[in-house]
């Protein structure tokens, strides 16, 4: 049974393992530094569908198919699916699960959804009521542009602080195994808001949430940034990453720059690919984690990773109503046994 350590961290005693994982993406993602990390690439952004929303559903189904193969099991062998996306009412996830037939608990923490799914999945396994849990999260550049910004063919200009929503999905199958990366601790984020109102400054809006969860996790577990091979944030991008390091220095006197990496900066070559301040979107951290980090943990190249999935909890209309952007960051610690 999991036990609480400190004020908000759950330490898992059975430490669920990642049985298999997979990332899928689009052409821009393939052209980035992590092009090798994808199990399947969809060069055609519509994925054979008429509407972007259904294209994202297909991304999720592909990620799940590859993750199940990687774990060596079928959808019938999975007891619970946890997942989410950015499309209204999490419909990409709901529609993807029409065909998979796994009991679903849909989640939403914006771009922090994959971390939330892993944390909830680990706790579900720890409860003993489930033996295998799947987690999946996705985003699609075109679907996100349509919902949150402008129609795709509109000739607008984005400021340099804006980030590019990834066309990607990541999926992982969790269960009990003697080998593979394990989830040893999880922590849920608090809704944090330091008053950023500009929807083109999502990295800045999310950095305080990442710092809050990181600070609480380090306090609860009595660890230092140097204890981790990587502290991996979701999609803070260039500006959010800089601000996270500054907040850690100013409020905690900690230098995290040596251990910190950001999925949004790993996914794209921001300058060459015209990706603004870096990647974002639910699929960004899910794909980087499943395509690059979890395999590195499995291979032993990394041994201890703290994953902080960051999400900006705005709606398409809340910035127009003058609201600032609340953000959240959920933490999942991965370790590897000797």
């Amino acid at each position, binding site marked *: 049974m999991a036990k609480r350590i400190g004020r908000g961290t759950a330490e898992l005693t059975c430490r669920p393992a990642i049985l298999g994982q997979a990332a899928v993406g689009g052409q821009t993602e393939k052209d980035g530094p992590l092009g090798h990390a994808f199990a399947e690439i969809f060069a055609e952004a519509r994925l054979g569908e*008429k509407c972007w929303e259904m294209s994202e559903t297909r991304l999720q189904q592909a990620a799940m198919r590859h993750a199940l193969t990687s774990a060596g099991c079928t959808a019938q062998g999975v007891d619970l699916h946890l997942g989410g996306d950015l499309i209204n009412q999490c419909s990409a996830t709901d529609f993807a699960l029409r065909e998979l037939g796994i009991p679903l608990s849909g989640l939403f923490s914006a771009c922090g959804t994959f971390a939330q799914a892993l944390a909830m999945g680990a706790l579900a396994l720890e409860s003993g009521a489930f033996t295998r849990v799947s987690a999946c999260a996705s985003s699609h550049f075109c679907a996100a542009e349509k919902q949150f910004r402008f*129609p795709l*063919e*509109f*000739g*607008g200009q984005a400021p340099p602080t804006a980030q590019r929503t990834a066309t990607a999905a990541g999926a992982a199958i969790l269960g009990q195994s003697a080998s593979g990366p394990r989830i040893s601790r999880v922590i849920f984020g608090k809704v944090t808001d*330091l008053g950023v109102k500009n929807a083109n400054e999502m990295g800045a809006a999310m950095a305080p949430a990442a710092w809050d969860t990181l600070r609480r996790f380090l306090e609860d577990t009595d660890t230092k940034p140097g204890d981790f091979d990587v502290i991996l944030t979701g999609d803070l991008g260039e500006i959010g990453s800089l*601000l996270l390091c500054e907040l850690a220095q100013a409020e905690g006197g900690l230098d995290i720059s040596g251990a910190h990496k950001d999925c949004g900066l790993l996914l794209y070559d921001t300058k060459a690919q015209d990706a603004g301040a870096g990647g974002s979107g639910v699929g960004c951290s899910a794909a980087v984690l499943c395509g690059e980090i979890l395999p590195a943990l499995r291979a032993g190249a990394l041994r201890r990773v703290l994953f902080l999935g960051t999400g900006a909890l705005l709606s398409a209309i809340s910035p127009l109503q003058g609201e600032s952007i609340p953000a959240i960051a959920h933490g999942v610690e991965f370790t590897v046994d000797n």
Partner: protein
Amino acid sequence: MKTTNNQYEKMVHKASPDSPHAKNFLLAFLVGGVICALGQGFHVIFEKLGFEEEQVKIIVPCALIFLTAVFTALGVYDKLGKHAGAGAGVPITGFANAIVAPAMEYHCEGLVLGVGANLFRLAGPVLAYGSAVATIYGVIFYFLGGK
């Protein structure tokens, strides 16, 4: 020490790069100028083809709108707009792009509630406030004795 909203605003401002204003202004000026020169070119051509002045004033915007619709559909105009900003947005071609882009985007939701309802999603504010300002201007003009 906990960072306050004001302190954080300053941190964000310092960390965020400015838009490249000089480059943006220059590109907007050049592209906007080229689009307007193109319009003037059409004007000259249609005049030479023997159309009346009043007809040319209608044909030229139609030609620019038609070309914009084609280049929007080909996925070219959004790239132009990304680099040229207001240079591509302010001329009549920008308005045409703002109508064609949602028409393409919302075709999935059907011709009535998709295309029809979203056609003026971007251009609507320009029409609404443009008409309002024109009305106010017309009233003032009338009372000042303009003809």
